[in-house]
């Protein structure tokens, strides 16, 4: 679905300043139906990587292929963005229209679809994120979590094959975070949508089927969440924490199976350890 091949990227700088590479040689392959979490601390290059995935930024060297199309090919740009939808951190800055349903329709309108088809897609997209009852509301009166779900619906209406979410929960309260994460996991499990979630929340990454740790522009770990999070010391060396469940079991000492990352599994494991 997405193939990243020895990717390098650096932001342009003024003369005299030293150029610093934000992405320093990443190679990855993301398969159809996967739920990949890109995890890294601030400044690790994870958001830059996201912007490289659908051609907002163009690689300095190396290449990104979306369904076989190179993102550096300008003629294919619309086609690539139609396949790979993107949701950003701040819901306020990605909502264009003054009515929810008109905002969700924005991408379809740009695609030049007939009105009936737009109507169908808008209704389906709003249904999928559970926002149908708000379709005639003004976006600025919604809560953060609701706004972000509208933004997701706006991308869904393009009927993309993959959705890239760049820290979609960073500006939300715990309730909003929960709403959005529920919508994202449902998209992956029920609709089989390929998801790339950029985050620095460990518990969100733990819900993915694969976790890639990005540090200083490189992919340093790439495995299932269980295997990644059980390497507590390795995670710390990349200035990252582990989920609280793993942290607890790690503190309790050896002999515990650190791959039991969900709360229920962790509770069972500790019970077994204590008895």
């Amino acid at each position, binding site marked *: 679905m997405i193939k990243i091949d020895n990717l390098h990227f650096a932001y342009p700088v003024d003369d005299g300043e030293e150029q610093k590479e934000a992405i320093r040689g990443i190679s990855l392959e993301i398969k159809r139906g996967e739920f990949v979490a890109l995890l890294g601390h601030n400044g690790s290059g994870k958001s830059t990587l996201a912007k490289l995935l659908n051609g907002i930024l163009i690689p300095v060297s190396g290449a990104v292929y979306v369904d076989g199309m190179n993102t550096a090919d300008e003629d294919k740009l619309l086609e690539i963005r139609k396949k790979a939808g993107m949701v950003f951190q701040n819901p306020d800055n990605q909502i264009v229209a003054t009515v929810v349903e008109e905002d969700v329709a924005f991408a379809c309108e740009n695609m*030049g679809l007939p009105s009936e088809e*737009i109507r169908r897609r808008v209704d389906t997209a709003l249904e999928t994120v559970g926002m149908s009852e708000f379709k005639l509301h003004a976006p*600025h009166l919604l809560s953060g979590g609701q706004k972000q779900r509208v933004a997701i619906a706006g991308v869904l209406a393009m009927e993309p094959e993959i959705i890239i979410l760049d820290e979609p929960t960073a500006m939300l309260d715990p309730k909003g975070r929960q709403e959005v994460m529920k919508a994202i996991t449902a998209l992956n499990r029920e609709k089989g949508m390929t998801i790339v979630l950029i985050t620095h929340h460990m518990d969100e990454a733990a819900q993915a089927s694969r976790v890639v740790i990005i540090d200083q522009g490189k992919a340093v770990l790439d495995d299932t969440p269980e295997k990644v999070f059980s390497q507590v010391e390795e995670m710390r060396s990349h200035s990252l924490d582990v989920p609280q469940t793993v942290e607890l079991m790690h503190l309790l000492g050896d002999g515990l199976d650190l791959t039991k990352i969900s709360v229920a599994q962790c509770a069972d494991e500790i019970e077994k350890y204590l008895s």
Partner: protein
Amino acid sequence: MIKDITLGQYFPGNSFIHRLDPRIKLIALVVFIVSIFFAEGLVSYGLCIGFTVAMVAISKIKPKLILRSLRAIIIIVIFTALLNMLYTPGKEIVSFWIFKITWEGIYAGFAMAVRVILLVTVSALLTYTTSPMALTDGLEKLLLPLKKIKIPVHEFAMMMTIALRFIPTLIEETDKIMSAQKARGADFESGNIIKRAKALIPVLVPLFVSSFRRADELATAMECRLYHGGSGRTRLKSLRYGKIDAIGTIILVLVCAGIIVLAKVFGL
């Protein structure tokens, strides 16, 4: 505090007026306002007032809302009425100092007040019954011929839509910045005008900076949702000239022609 400001407020509904094509409503506004200025006698004014009252009634917009929009211009109305009253020559009733009040003056003063009130009422009715999106859409379609002389009509309409969308967001942000500055001891309420204007600078600078950041992010988000200008764009609700629009047009033409004929031909 600033949150109470309402601009071009829209009240959703399903009346005949609400369902009219925004293009018809925009044209009707212009045509009717021109007709109002043709009115002369009591009969033609009566027709203008009657038509306006009927439209408000049909739209089911609460008269209280119309009155609220009139409150803002009450001083202008009184002022223009007084000027007309005092400076229209004719048969004198009373005179004092350099002022003379004439019968013609009183009539002209009232007529001007009625005109201004009707003008504001119908304009308010347009924004109350038309969603901002429909309004910009209608404007875009109406101005489309200007594209031939290289005026970027679609881009202007898009700018208007985005401006309307961001008014509440920016008002909220201004409120937040002002609270933050107040918490650091800023004083916005005392001192003369110059002092107060100066106090606003620390509010405006961060507001501008954040607006640029927002604009940048919005542009990226729009590109990600395949925005590439107006060419080949379709709409969720395409504007269609339907049966009710035909009825609306006929009524409008009849009323406006009636006003002009009554005023100019019969002098009523």
